[in-house]
């Protein structure tokens, strides 16, 4: 692997924060950074009997808008496809799934974390 850039470092940091947060509210984190040919799912967790697929967006200061604004319709469509692909490969069927988003905003040492459930 190539040397991670600053952006990668920030992203990895945000994903770790998000995972810690989900564990703290009682989710069980099952997989991190699962990849296939269509793309990547940042976090896969279980909230009791629900499978939760989480997109994590990390930003450094809000100068260019909320981190969540970066999740476009296109990105959502890709996530849905990825969820299907994951279920097929892991042979998970007949379960309830949900797509969540977590935004991590880092601003001069302060970290603001937001968790949106069921983002369709």
């Amino acid at each position: 692997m190539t040397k991670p850039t600053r952006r990668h470092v920030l992203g990895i940091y945000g994903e770790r924060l998000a995972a810690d947060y989900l564990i703290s509210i009682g989710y069980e984190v099952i997989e991190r950074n699962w990849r296939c040919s269509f793309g990547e799912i940042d976090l896969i967790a279980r909230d009791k009997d629900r499978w939760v697929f989480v997109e994590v967006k990390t930003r450094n200061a809000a100068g260019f808008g909320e981190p969540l604004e970066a999740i476009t319709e296109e990105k959502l469509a890709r996530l849905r496809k990825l969820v299907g692909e994951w279920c097929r490969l892991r042979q998970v069927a007949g379960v309830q799934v949900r797509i969540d988003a977590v935004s991590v905003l880092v601003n001069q040492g302060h970290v603001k974390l937001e968790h949106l459930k069921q983002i369709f």
Partner: protein
Amino acid sequence: MALAKTKAMALFGLGGTLIDVEADISSNLPNFILVGLPDASLSEATARVRAACANSGLALPGRRITVNLSPASVPKRGSSFDLAISMAVLAASGAVGVESVEEWLHIGELALDGTLRGVHGVLPSLLAAKELGWLKFIVPADNLAEAAAVQGITFQAFDHLTQVAAFHGSTVERVSPREQEMLVKEAVGSSPCYSDVFGQSEVIDAMVVAATGGHHILMLGSPGSGKTMIAERLPSILPELTPTQAIETAAVESLSGIHGSISSLPPFRAPHHNSSASSLIGGGLSIPRPGLISLAHNGVLFLDEAPEFQQPALEALRQPLESGEVFISRAAGVARFPARFQLVMAANPCPCGFAWDPAKNCRCVEPAKSRYLHRLSGPLLDRIDISLKVNNVPKALQKERGPKSSDLRERVIAARQVGSSRLAKTPWQLNAQVPGAYLRRHWRPGAAVLASLDGALERGTISMRGYDRCLRLAYTLADLDGSEVPRASHIARAMFLRGAELG
């Protein structure tokens, strides 16, 4: 609270519907959805509102914002909903007071920096909303004069989003208001005066008659004889508009995007002869818009070079001349606009203009001449009570100044006073509006007075219609002389003013 609502107004013609603007903020990906039958320009409001709020220090939450305009079945258009949408959203996000926002109706367009811009149709919106029982309004400072003209409402005028937000309880830093330049409309005295017209005392006298009775008038004369000057000065001798009339006229102007203060000077509209029927009568692509005749409501419509107008444009005037209003049907529905105007037409006697000029040779062939004036159709001329020749001013009279408009106006007001007691018992306000049948039945002067008129009718020199017009004019002339009933001299002068029947 994630839910808030306020009021806005959807105009259609001069009427309108109160619109509930509801905003909901839900825990979802950032998005701004506007539903409830907005047209293209209104759909763009989301972009303006988002930017205006962000640039005013009132950033919208990064959540899904849904704004609903209800009733959803009423078509809504234009940018005047921006302020209402932004206030509903800000209230839903907790930035301003929910209850405060709910109490007011908001009108205004937002610039990206949060400046509140004036919009068309504020005056009719306020009038229509008042009619529907809504009395509290927030309007752009640009439209202050229009709001101030409406009696019995409470309003606030602002020129920046932050001021409105602060008014509703936000702690945002207010952008200080701009200096308001109060538009002072030129006073009546500064409008053109009949003392600028030289040596046309006879025609000016006829204009006084026209002004008194509200008679439509046709002037025929060579180029350069002063027809246009004389017509332009008619508003200067008409009585000032009553506050109700001034507001009626200003409401149409507001709809057409003419801002400014409410003027008591009767409007004067002089369309070019190339104007289409829809530009005169009213039109619009799918939504009815007022035409020039409605902008001339309570004032004067002057058709210079009347025979040069397109036939359909001229004929379209007939119905509004009769009813004082016009109904415009378009895909979106039918709108009624007021159109009680005084028609003044000017025409040359022939295409080259010199048929009656002793000094110049007319080069028109006979058929061309007769065709020219025939373009003014019988039914249209039927509605013209006064038609007269305007001759070139002879050298001897070229130094003779016309009377002052202010003096003439006093005469007109005094004469209308005389006639008002007679008209009080009828549904009409001016002599010109009284139909012939009513005139003949109820206002008959003695047989001796009518002798000359009856004689002319018997000889066939005037028609029944001409008879009615003479009678109507005679009453106006009597009013000007301060007499209750016309005398024989009034009838004689009326027959002269009515002019020869064309063609």
